[in-house]
């Protein structure tokens, strides 16, 4: 498939290019909606489509006013601040607990391993609306509903499965005799963990943390139910914006968020390469 042999028949050549064209269209479908909002966010008018001035590449058709709105509007600023203060704390909780548990789970003699794994992974499997409903009922019983910590704990719970999965995957390639070597040279378990094990599994921990961060940062269903107005996060503000008074500021926010995604994706890709190089899976 990758390259056409010189003896390919006419039909084969036709199919080869048709197939490529079909794939091109599907890639277009995947990427177009994300690309198209970027120029639209610079629209000088309050429209969601390309104005004639924009199509003519007239500088007057473009402006930064939606970005200006985002950075000056107190609603959006409050939402940004809430997101920024919830996601990192949830990430730290999820990463610390998740990494410890993944190390525990990777050892050879863990009783009830599959049952424990099923419980720990469950926040990822259960549909968000059900998690949100359950948490709403339960957290209002214990007085956590509508509080900052309620949202943080819920987001941390949703993020841990990702940490467990990525860290467990890194631990598969971890040579356990290094721990024994370190112990035999007189290091205590804590020193061994921070000086030997941690640096080696760090790429997995970081990518798990990034997954946990993006889970919390993008999460809207749970915060919609659990949060009160003072925990309104960026996705929540976008959600209300899309449902009620749709304003082009949303496109500016969306563009900024796509920028964050690209940054995250690049980081993850670099980490993956580094981890593969460390394990000697690829020549680098």
């Amino acid at each position, binding site marked *: 498939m990758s390259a056409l042999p010189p003896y390919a028949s006419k039909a084969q050549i036709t199919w080869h290019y048709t197939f490529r064209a079909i794939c091109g269209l599907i890639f277009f479908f995947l*990427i177009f909606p994300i690309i198209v909002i970027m120029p639209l966010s610079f629209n000088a008018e309050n429209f969601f489509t390309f104005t004639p001035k924009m199509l003519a590449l007239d500088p007057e058709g473009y402006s930064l006013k939606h970005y200006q709105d985002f950075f000056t509007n107190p609603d959006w600023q409050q939402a940004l601040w809430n997101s920024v203060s919830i996601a990192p704390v949830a990430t730290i909780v999820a990463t610390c607990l998740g990494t410890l548990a993944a190390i*525990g789970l990777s050892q050879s003699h863990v009783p009830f391993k599959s049952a424990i794994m099923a419980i720990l992974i469950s926040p990822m499997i259960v549909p968000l609306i059900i998690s949100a409903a359950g948490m709403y009922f339960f957290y209002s019983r214990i007085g956590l509903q509508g509080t900052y910590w309620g949202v943080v704990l819920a987001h941390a719970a949703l993020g841990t499965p990702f940490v467990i999965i990525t860290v467990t995957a890194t631990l598969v390639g971890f040579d356990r005799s290094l721990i024994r070597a370190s112990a035999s040279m007189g290091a205590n378990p804590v020193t061994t963990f921070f000086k030997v094990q941690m640096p080696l599994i760090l790429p997995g921990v970081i990518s798990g943390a990034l997954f946990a961060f993006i889970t919390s940062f993008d999460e809207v269903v749970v915060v919609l139910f659990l949060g009160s107005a003072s925990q309104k996060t960026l996705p929540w503000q976008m959600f209300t914006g899309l449902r009620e008074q749709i304003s082009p500021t949303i496109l500016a926010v969306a563009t900024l968020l796509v920028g964050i995604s*690209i940054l995250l994706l690049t980081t993850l890709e670099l980490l993956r390469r580094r981890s593969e190089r460390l394990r000697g899976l690829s020549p680098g």
Partner: protein
Amino acid sequence: MSSTISDPASDGVVRAADGTPLKQRLNRALRREKLRSFLLILPLLAFIVLSFIMPIADMLFRSVENQIVEETIPLTVVALKEWDPASGEAPGEEVFAAFHADFVQAFKDKKHTRLGLRLNYDEPGMSGLFRKTGRPSTKMQPPYKEAFIKVDEDWGTVETWAVIKQASPAYTDGYFLNAVDAHRTAKGIEMVPENERIYLFLFGRTMFLSIVITMSCLLLGYPIAFLLASLPLRSSNMLMILVLLPFWTSLLVRTSAWKVLLQQQGVVNDFLVWIGLVNDADRLIMINNQFGTIVAMTHILLPFMILPLFSVMKTISPNYVRAAKSLGANDWTAFWKVYFPQSIPGIGAGAILVFILSIGYYITPELVGGTSGIFISNRIAYHISTSLNWGLAAALGTILLALVMLLFYVYDKIVGIDNVKLG
């Protein structure tokens, strides 16, 4: 075997340096290791149980819990035990006296409207009846039966009391019956009238739309995964970015992009008008209906189909297809008889994953689904935040959860829960 190892004791038991049998020492070490790994897992396990499992258990409990009636009107519940609705007569004075005592107390605690609202789920009109009776109840004199009937004639009917008696037990299957469009009447369990059935229909629509979305994801995802698996590493890595970028982009960004694109004054309609395919006057309605939901959700879930398909196709050796061709198969036969069967595990994994994700979706249908594209989860959200019928929301959620768990069990059998890969 043990005798060959240096062993000072003559009983044939291998011993450690301090003289305890080696087996015992090993067992002890193993136990310690088990304990240590368990202690590492424990904090997270406790955290997940507290912050996630207990809420889910609470939801399951709420779907059958019904203590409000017993708590609000305890004397009446006891008095009503003697009364049989089949007798065809409203209960006697002693029930009314008990009810009066309960009701005045409930009115003082401002709980009577809550109970009315709860009973309203079983019989519309109860909420109004309770609210209406609130203030007059404090001025009533015996005989209470007449006094209540004077406030509203409904207090004298068998149906009103049958509803209260039926709602008395501390646990009820009423919410589950409501969730499948049934209710309990004097004659037993019956389906609600045809024009009021919504939940079975909504479950059906959720399933149908999820199947359509899964199918479209498969249709679009298969060629992409095939291309990525057959290209050399360098170019497939480049193209993979086009799959991973949408995967990593916020759900709301993608939903808003579709909302913007598919609007009547949006980019797609503008384009269609510009190339002359559609008249400016009758632009297509592509948003706030099923079409919008299907398109947006296919786009959102497509990476979840491509990634498992890709990881399976990556392991299929090209030699099989080459062998088939050298034995005389044409391109199609070689693909269909040799390649395709080997990719079926990937199809299974991707399809179940997409299906599980889509039947529980809430945000996208809520924003682009209009009324014809909403899912069962939107109804759950409605009952939690708008109608406040938490019992029904919990029952609907429990049914949905059972469905997802069943599917996940199948997924676990096919792929294995430990084989979930990210990125």
